């Protein structure tokens, strides 16, 4: 027996396209047709693709919320560290300045805010993407290797509420892909 839950059945249906414009257009068509659970794969970043697959580009996404929280914690933490060291822990009279010399702490506050925001961005990105991910169902598709070279893939997942194998298959066929393939788990 394998460790953990073994899933069977269909993960989704994948279609292969030859150009980034075709992929974006297909994703937009799928979004407009009401599909919500889909993913797109490309060898390089494509402008506006994340909007085309229905990801929110406006408002506060969970990612930007994480980075904001990281930045705020870092900023407050950095300032508190300076304040604690200079006012509580080891007050020193430097040039007759008050112990609470906040202007001098702004660079540290700023740097700590950036540092924690960057940590939140990197580790939050990894966590939200579920990385590292040694196995993904799309690897079962033979030609999926091309996704890191010169082909573009759109997958509509079985967990989509509107998912119906035949309908999705026909829908993707109508978008003139190179081929449409089932993706098993």
């Amino acid at each position, binding site marked *: 027996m394998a460790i953990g839950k073994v899933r069977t059945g269909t993960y989704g249906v994948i279609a292969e396209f030859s150009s980034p414009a075709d992929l*974006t*257009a297909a994703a937009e068509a799928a979004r407009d047709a009401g599909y919500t659970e889909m993913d797109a794969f490309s060898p390089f970043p494509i402008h506006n693709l994340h909007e085309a697959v229905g990801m929110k*580009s*406006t*408002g506060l996404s969970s990612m930007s919320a994480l980075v904001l929280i990281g930045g705020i914690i870092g900023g407050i933490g950095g300032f508190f560290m300076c304040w604690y060291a200079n006012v509580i822990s080891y007050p020193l009279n430097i040039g007759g300045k008050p112990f609470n010399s906040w202007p001098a702490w*702004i660079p540290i506050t700023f740097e700590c805010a950036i540092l924690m925001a960057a940590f939140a961005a990197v580790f939050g990105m990894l966590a939200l993407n579920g990385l590292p991910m040694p196995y993904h169902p799309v690897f079962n598709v033979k030609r999926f290797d091309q996704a890191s070279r010169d082909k573009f893939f759109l997958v509509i997942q079985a967990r989509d509420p509107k998912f119906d194998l035949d309908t999705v298959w026909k829908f993707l066929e109508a978008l003139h892909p190179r081929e449409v393939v089932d993706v098993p788990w």
Partner: protein
Amino acid sequence: MSAGVAETNASATGISQWRMPSLVIGIIGLALSALGYFINQETFFRSWLPSFLFWFSIVAGSLAVLMLQYVTGGEWGLMIRRPLGAAARTMLWMVLFFIPIILGMKYLYPWSNTQWAMADENVSQKLGWLNWKRFLAFAALYFALWNLWAWRIRALSLSFYQDRSPYTELKRRKWAASGLLMIVLTLTFASIDWMMSTEPKWSSTMYGITFVVGCALSALAFVTFFLTRLVNTEAMGSLLKPTHLRDLGNLMLAFVMFYAYTTFSEFLLIWYANLHEEIPHFLVRTSGLWGAVAFSVAMFHFFLPFGLLLIRPIKDRPKTIAIVAVIIIVMRYVALYWLVAPSWYGEHFTWSWMNLTTLLGIGGVWIWAFIGQLRGQTIIPIHETWVEEAIREGALKVNG
């Protein structure tokens, strides 16, 4: 698509209708300022300099951002190249508007009083630099260089339109690259001459770069605001995409942060060193009402636009980014006034109606000249590189 683009020109956007009203406002403003000259010369000249600096910073910043665009390329600059170029070529008018500063030197620059300057231990050592002959010669040099680059780049753009030769484009890029070096140096020295020397005893090495960054910010805020005025016209409305405004918003965000960085660094170093020669600059500018102005600069020149420009929907929508651009433009004037006026008035906050009339006077005539430069040109330079990239996604949207 491209044929349709080729036929749109500046008059299709209706900007010409703003030309006469702004000239009328400009002339009324200048006439009232002239009246003010006969009432109080000192106030007139001390109102003229901040107003001149405000409009000048848009013109000089436009030239700098235009050259940056020619060096880096990129879709971000395509929609703003025409207004940037038009603003840069109004540098000739800035020569005219500089004349009152020469006439009013004795009211603006304490070092022009040689008797006082010779007697002062500190200033007397700077008279090799702070004297009217060098001041005038360098001002002439700055204006000559700025106009040379503005019009040379214009000429190269025109010949590129004719020959479409990559060598012409390369030549323009070389002019733009050397021009960036030129303009950062000349604006640094110009800010020392025209602004910092209002306080001849004080000096700061951050002053020049703060002014250069402020110029770029002024220009970006101005052209962004200008673009949002055109968004409802058929010609520009079909071309302008949210991503263009987002790019400009991101650039404004970068320059808002850069400005805050240089300004705060200057303050922090002087505050920390606490030297007798350096701190009066900030002591004056943080006391009384000037302190309130300083607080408003920190809040509305940095924190508010910074926060707003982090939010993507605000950058993408013409209405909201126009508000941010206006906040920045207004604060540019406030920051410039806060930087120079306390040099003359000390701790007493001073504001005169002539500040407003000179601002409107120079601005009205300048916008008239700006639209004059823009009139008759296609709204974007359709023969340039990057055009395809800029409109391709628009076309893709239509097909999708």
